[in-house]
C-alpha cells in the first residue's frame, strides 16, 4: 500500500522535472537561434577568447568586436567577463590551460608579477602598434626591458568632486592639509557629507594612495617596508593614519563608513548628498550615468604644507592587455590587440566607457574626460599601493585604515599592521 503511494509521488516528481526541462528547452531553442547560425557559418574561423574584469565595458567591447570581426571575417572573438575578485582567482588557472584568454587583461603590480614569473605573457616588444601608445605610460607592462603587456587605461586614483557644490559654496581644491580640513568643515556645515568613503571595500586601498603620497615621497618605500628596512610604526605612516582618523573623528566621512560599499558611496555622491567620493576617475562615467546633471572634477588631499608637497595626484596605468604565451592562436590574438590599439578604436572605447586611455592623441568628448585629461600634465605618482608586492602586506596596510576608523589609535593600528608584515618577512 504505502509503496504504491510513494511510487506515485515519485512519478509525479519525475514528470514535473521532465516537463519543466522540456519547457525550458523550448525557451532555450527559440532564444539562441542567432548563436547557432553564427556557429554553423563559421566553418574555418579561428576563435579567440578575450577575458577581462570590466563588466561595465561589455557593450562598448561588443561594438568594437563586431567591427573587428567584420574587418577580419576569419576571426571570432569570444569575450568573457569576471568580477574583479573572481578574475584574480580564475584568470591564472584559465591562462595555464591555453584555451582561454588568448587576449587577457591583467592588473599591474602583484598580478603582473606572478603572471610574468610564470612566463604566461607572450613577448610583444616588437609589436608595431606599440608606437600608438604614450611611451611614458607603458612602464607598468614592462619587465627586464621587454614589453609583456600594454596598459590600456589611465586612471587617477584620487577623490572626484562635485563642481557645482564647490562653486555654490565658493570652494576650490585645497593646497594643504589645513585647507583640506576647512573645505570639509564648510561642506559639513552646509549639510553635505564632505567625503563619501566606501570603507567596506575599495575605499581604504584607494584613498591611502593620495593620503600618503606626500607624507613619504620615496618611490621605494614599500619595497623597504617589505624587506624590513622601514617600518609602518615610522612617523610618516602613523601620521597618515592619524590624518585618516582626524577625517573620521570630525565626521567628514558618511556615517558607518566601514559598512559602505563602493556602489552605495557612489550613489550618495551621485545624488549630491556627498561632495567628494574617495575612489578614482574610473567611477566618473558611472556617476554621470546615475545623475546626468552632475559636474565632476578630480582633486587630491595635500596632507602637508603647500611648499612641501611634491605630488599633486595619483595615477595608475591598468587594464593591461597581454597575449597568452600558451595561446594556439597568437597571430589572431595580436591582430585583435593591434585593433584595440588603433587610435580611432581607443577613442571609441574611451568615449564609450568614460575611461582615459594610454593611446596617444585620442580626443575626448565628454567634459569629465577632458577634465581628467588635464591631469596628464600634472605631477602625479604611480599608485603606491600597487608597489606593495605581497598581497597579505597590502591587506595589512589597508586594514590599518579600517582600524583607525573603527576607533583604534594610529599608533596601535600601525603596530598591529607592522606585526603582520613582520610575520610575512619571517615566513
Amino acid at each position, binding site marked *: 500500500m504505502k509503496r504504491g503511494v510513494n511510487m506515485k509521488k515519485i512519478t509525479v516528481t519525475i514528470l514535473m522535472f521532465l516537463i519543466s526541462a522540456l519547457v525550458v528547452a523550448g525557451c532555450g531553442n527559440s532564444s539562441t537561434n542567432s548563436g547557432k547560425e553564427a556557429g554553423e557559418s563559421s566553418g574555418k574561423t579561428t576563435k579567440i577568447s578575450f577575458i577581462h574584469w570590466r563588466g561595465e565595458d561589455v557593450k562598448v567591447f561588443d561594438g568594437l568586436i563586431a567591427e573587428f570581426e567584420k574587418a577580419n571575417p576569419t576571426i571570432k572573438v569570444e569575450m568573457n567577463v569576471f568580477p574583479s*575578485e573572481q578574475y*584574480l*582567482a580564475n584568470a*591564472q588557472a584559465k*591562462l*595555464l590551460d591555453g584555451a582561454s584568454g588568448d587576449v587577457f587583461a591583467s592588473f599591474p603590480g*602583484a598580478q603582473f608579477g*606572478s*603572471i610574468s*614569473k*610564470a*612566463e*604566461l605573457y607572450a613577448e610583444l616588444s616588437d609589436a608595431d602598434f606599440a608606437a600608438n601608445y604614450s611611451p611614458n605610460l607603458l612602464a607598468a607592462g614592462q619587465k627586464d626591458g621587454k614589453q609583456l603587456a600594454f596598459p590600456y587605461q589611465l586612471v587617477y586614483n584620487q577623490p572626484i568632486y562635485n563642481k557645482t557644490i564647490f562653486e555654490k559654496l565658493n570652494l576650490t581644491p585645497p593646497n594643504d592639509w589645513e585647507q583640506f580640513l576647512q573645505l570639509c568643515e564648510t561642506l559639513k556645515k552646509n549639510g553635505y557629507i564632505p567625503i563619501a568613503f566606501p*570603507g*567596506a*571595500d575599495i575605499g581604504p586601498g584607494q584613498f591611502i594612495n593620495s593620503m600618503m603620497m606626500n607624507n613619504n615621497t620615496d618611490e621605494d618605500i614599500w619595497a623597504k617596508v617589505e624587506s624590513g628596512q622601514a617600518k609602518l610604526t615610522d612617523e610618516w605612516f602613523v601620521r597618515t593614519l592619524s590624518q585618516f582618523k582626524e577625517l573620521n573623528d570630525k565626521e567628514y566621512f*558618511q*556615517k*558607518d*563608513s*566601514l*559598512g*559602505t*560599499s563602493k556602489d*552605495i558611496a557612489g*550613489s*550618495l555622491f551621485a545624488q549630491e548628498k556627498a561632495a567628494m567620493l574617495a575612489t578614482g576617475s574610473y567611477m566618473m562615467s558611472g556617476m554621470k550615468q546615475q545623475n546626468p546633471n552632475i559636474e565632476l572634477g578630480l582633486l587630491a588631499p595635500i596632507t602637508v604644507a603647500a611648499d612641501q608637497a611634491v605630488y599633486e595626484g595619483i595615477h595608475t596605468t591598468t587594464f593591461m592587455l597581454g597575449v597568452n604565451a600558451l595561446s594556439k592562436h597568437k597571430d589572431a590574438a595580436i591582430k585583435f590587440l593591434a585593433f584595440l590599439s588603433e587610435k580611432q578604436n581607443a577613442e571609441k572605447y574611451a568615449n564609450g566607457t568614460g575611461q582615459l586611455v594610454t593611446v596617444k592623441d585620442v580626443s575626448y568628448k565628454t567634459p569629465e574626460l577632458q577634465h581628467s585629461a588635464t591631469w596628464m600634465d600634472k605631477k602625479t605618482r604611480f599608485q603606491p599601493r600597487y608597489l606593495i608586492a*605581497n*598581497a*597579505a602586506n597590502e*591587506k595589512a596596510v589597508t*586594514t590599518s585604515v*579600517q*582600524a583607525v576608523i*573603527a576607533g583604534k589609535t594610529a599608533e596601535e593600528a600601525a603596530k598591529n599592521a607592522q*606585526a*603582520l608584515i613582520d*610575520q610575512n618577512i*619571517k*615566513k
Partner: protein
Amino acid sequence: MKHSKTLYLFVLPGLFMYLLFFVYPTLNGLVLSFTDWEGISSHWNWVGFDNYKRMLFNDDIFQTALTNNLKFMLVVVIFQTSISLIFAILLLKNSKSNVFFRALYFFPTIISSISVAFIWAFVFNPNVGVLNLLLGKAGLEALAQNWLGDPKLAIYSIAFVKVWAHAGQMMVIFVAGLQSIPEELYEAVYLDGATNWQAFKNVTWPMIAPAATIVVAYTTIQSFKAFDLIFAMTGGGPIYSTEILSTYIYHTAFQGSEFGYAAAQSMGFMVIIALITMGQFKLLKGRSS
C-alpha cells in the same frame, strides 16, 4: 552475511569517479602543502613542514580566522539548533496552518547563498538599508547599527543570516524526528503526572537524539564552509573580523598567490573539522544512550 563478488562491481563506478575527481585532487593538495608553489608556474621547491610551522606559530590571521570560525560555529549551532527545535515543537501537528508555516520557514533554504547574500547586504546597508529605516519607523532608532561595518558586530550579523537561511531546513528534520516518537510514551509519562518540561526532558529529548546529531553535525560543517555568504557580504572584513578559515584559505591562494601555504591551511582546516565533528558525535551519542 555472505555477499557475492558482484558487489565489488557495484562499488566501482561511483568509487572511480570519486577517487578520480575528488580524492586524487585532495591528495594532490596534500603534496602541494609541502611546497612553495605560487599557483601558476611549473617551478616549485619542497619546503618540508615550513608551511605547517608558519600556520601554527607565525600567522596571526590564521589564529584570528580560526577564532572567528569557532565563534561563528558556536553561535550558529546553538541558535540554529534551538530555534529549529522550538519551531518543530510548535509546528508538530499536521494542521493546515502548521503545514503552511513549515513550508514558509523552509523557503529560504532553496534560494542560493549568493542571492541570500545580495538580499541581506541590501537590508543591512547603513545608507539605503531597510533594516535601520524600519527600526527608525518603529521608534527604535537606538537599535539601528552598522550591521556589517562594525568589526564587533559583523560576524554575528552574518551568523544571523546563516540561521535565517537554514533554520527551516533543520526544523523539518526535527519535525520528522518528533513525529516518529510513539504517542504511548507521552501517555505513559503524563499518567505518571509528569509536567511538560519533564515530558520533554525524559521522552522528547532522548528520542530526538539521532535527529539532533544530524542537525548539529550538519550545521557545524556548514558553518565552517559558510564561504559564499561571507565572500559576497563582507569579503572577510572589516579588519579581518569576518575572516573565517575558508575565506582565509581562498585569500591566501588567490590574492596572495601562495598555493603551497593555502594547501597546508586546508589540511589544517580538515583536521579541525574532523576533530570537532568527532567530538560532537561522541557527546551526542553519549547523550542518547
